[in-house]
């Protein structure tokens, strides 16, 4: 019933007193938290900076594919991660964004925060995750939070007894349908190609009698007056446009990496995902990346968490080699 995330402040004072950190982690999702855990246990002087603890875990109601948990709420899994990390007294600065990242002449990273505070570190782990991808169609921005939503857990209650559209065909879309099914009177899934979601989710979805699925169909626009009232879809088979009356549109078509801070500084792919080597180091020595922010194809909680562990262990090796004067 309660999702308490506030952490005791005793160690955050380290952010005022530490001259140079061994490792600063940017991002408080599964990758960042697990990296913090591993780094602290290895004895590194590590701090974590994040806007919110939990990252995208909070956008999902239930998690059923994290080993060890048959069923757990996204928020609860985030809480258990946080509790584990807190038990090691790792300094975490919540509700802050890093606004700039540079490497100085002494090969030390200098991070600027949104309150103009500056922090220095020998290595940095970029684990900023990703944000929901937008459809990029007419009316989407106009009706954002007026029917168009990117957070099912947040906004589902507003659509009690209403017809809503879910855009997307992956696990997130299927989960959104299941979340919405207890509120909405009718749900129409619109997806440009075929389902990519896990069969186990599709089986559950097939049991619902108020769900209609329109595959091979594109969303063209969102319309309405004060609030969203309808969408126009294009059926690729019949090659015809069709207007559907609906009061909500939940967009679950994937994610875009939060890499704005590093554009033109390190190597990325076309999707602006960070390219890393097998030790999860980026093209800038000492800067590592983990989780959904990287080119790693499978955006999964357990994979992000494992990335975090890998990165922390690689960072320890990197720091050890550096002190030995064996920089690659």
């Amino acid at each position: 019933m309660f999702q308490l995330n506030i952490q005791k402040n005793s160690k955050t004072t380290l952010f005022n007193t530490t001259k140079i950190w061994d490792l600063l982690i940017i991002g408080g999702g599964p990758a960042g938290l697990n990296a913090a855990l591993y780094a602290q246990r290895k004895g590194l002087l590590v701090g974590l900076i994040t806007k919110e603890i939990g990252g995208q875990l909070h956008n999902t109601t239930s998690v059923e594919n994290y080993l060890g948990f048959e069923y757990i709420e996204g928020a609860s899994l985030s809480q258990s991660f946080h509790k584990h990390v807190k038990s090691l007294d790792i300094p975490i600065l919540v509700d802050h964004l890093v606004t700039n990242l540079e490497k100085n002449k002494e090969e030390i990273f200098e991070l600027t925060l949104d309150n103009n505070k500056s922090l220095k570190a020998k290595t940095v782990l970029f684990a900023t995750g990703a944000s929901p991808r937008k459809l990029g169609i007419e009316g989407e921005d106009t009706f954002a939070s007026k029917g168009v939503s990117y957070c099912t857990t947040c906004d589902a209650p507003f659509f009690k007894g209403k017809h809503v559209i879910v855009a997307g065909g992956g696990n997130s879309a299927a989960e959104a349908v299941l979340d919405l099914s207890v509120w909405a009177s009718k749900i129409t899934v619109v997806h440009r190609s075929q389902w990519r979601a896990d069969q186990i989710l599709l089986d559950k979805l097939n049991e619902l009698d108020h769900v209609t699925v329109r595959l091979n169909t594109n969303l063209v626009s969102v319309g309405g007056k004060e609030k969203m009232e309808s969408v126009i879809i294009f059926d690729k088979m019949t090659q015809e446009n069709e207007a559907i009356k609906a009061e909500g549109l939940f967009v679950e078509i994937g994610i875009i990496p939060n890499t704005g801070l590093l554009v033109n500084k390190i190597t990325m792919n076309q999707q602006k995902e960070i390219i890393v080597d097998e030790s999860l180091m980026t093209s800038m020595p000492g800067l590592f990346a983990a989780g959904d922010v990287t080119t790693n194809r499978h955006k999964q909680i357990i994979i992000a968490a494992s990335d975090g562990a890998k990165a922390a262990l690689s960072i320890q090796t990197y720091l050890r080699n550096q002190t030995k004067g064996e920089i690659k």
Partner: protein
Amino acid sequence: MNQFLDQNAQTQIKDLFQQMDKPITIVLFTKEEPCLTCVETKQLLEEVSALSDKITLVTKDLYEDIEEATKYDITLTPSFVFLDENQNYTGVKFNGIPAGHEINSLIGGILEVSVMKFDFSKETIDQIKKIDKPVNIKVFVTLSCPHCPGAVQNAHRLAMINKNIVGEMIEAQTFGELSQKYNVSGVPKIVINEKYELLGNHPIEAFLAEINKI
């Protein structure tokens, strides 16, 4: 009714309250049935205030204590406000039960009113202090919204720093009609002086930019 806060949550909150400095008073307004979540909100606040001797909880009736209600501009129930050590209104208000993710707004708010230290740059704090017109910030939330406490806490911090500002959380499901009036179908939705709107959680600077439009 069973306890809302289990042993684990109590220990956690008690531990956080160790950081409290000045005493604070919570004034809760309820009314006779029918009142959605009045009983639950009272119980939650009783349980929370029992975890620190620096918190005093006072319960009032919206209609019987009309003078007090007017003083804090209370029109909804349940609704509660925080007073500082001198019994002055801090501008921090909650409408509806702060359960789910909103427990963070409640506990965070108590700590900040008691300690009055903010992690903003000096320039930001100076800008907030300069605001010389009345500002009302409504933050509509749902209890399942993880991004909402960030927005609520920023509204509350603005209120704590400047007496001209009131920041209020509004639990959208309890106050459905009000939410409809403000066209809320996504949260957090921030409404400043009935006119300026922000959707989603925003940094304090975005709040300031909207306030400067007034």
